[in-house]
């Protein structure tokens, strides 16, 4: 009897935990943390799903994934007065600065992070409504995308898991 109970607890411990990350933003400073958490969680044995919705869909757009930007407007954490962010060229400048810093710290690029995530078994889901609203065809998405799903599928996938909304 005692043995049976022990077996059951061990089985429970073996069960894979699930982590769901909803990415609703398409700027570099949002996409990096989402990918860092996703890849790390995957190495720790979690089943990880990423759901790309609204601006998050830009992160998995073939044409945009390699050139995501940092917006200085509405981002008081940037080392400049917020209002200056409205001057033309400021977004490009902030993005260049950020890219330079990332490279210096040997951070992989966002496309490389997606490849790594995929290699670690992270599942990537695109939001069907967003694709419809933004007029993004399936072909425009990066090859790493597993499927196109709706909110109901996402919710049923997330049952019993942790959800992180970015």
């Amino acid at each position, binding site marked *: 009897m005692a043995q049976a109970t022990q077996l059951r607890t061990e089985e429970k411990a073996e069960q894979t935990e699930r982590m769901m990350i909803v990415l609703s933003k398409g700027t570099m400073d949002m996409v990096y943390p989402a990918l*860092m958490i996703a*890849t*790390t969680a995957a190495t*720790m*044995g979690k089943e990880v799903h990423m759901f790309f919705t609204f601006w998050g869909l830009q992160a998995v757009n073939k044409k945009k994934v390699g050139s995501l930007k940092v917006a200085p407007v509405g981002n008081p954490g940037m080392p400049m007065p917020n209002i200056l962010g409205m001057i033309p060229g400021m977004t490009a400048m902030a993005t260049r600065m950020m890219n330079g810093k990332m490279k210096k*710290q*040997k951070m*992989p690029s966002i496309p490389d992070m997606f490849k*790594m995530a995929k290699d*670690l078994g992270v599942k990537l889901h695109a939001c069907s409504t967003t694709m419809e609203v933004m007029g993004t065809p399936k072909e425009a998405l990066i090859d790493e995308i597993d499927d196109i799903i709706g909110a109901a599928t996402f919710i049923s996938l997330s049952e019993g898991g942790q959800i992180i909304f970015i």
Partner: protein
Amino acid sequence: MATVEQHKVIDSRGSFCPGPITDLFKAYRSSQLGDIIELLATDPAAKADVTAWAQKSGNELVDIIDEQDYTRIVVKITKKRS
């Protein structure tokens, strides 16, 4: 059949989270039970991160050695995920 346990040294110096953990994980994937993986890291978060990883994945944290400008973190592979 006896297999020889390997001792691998992974150099993640200069790379930051999630670099050291993903480097360690790649080595873990190609390792056998009983293998020793030694991770060299300069990321100050690596000690705590590898400790958490080892605990979560059921592997053994053997030693953390602070060298002058980096850390050596030694992990023994005691559990392989199928």
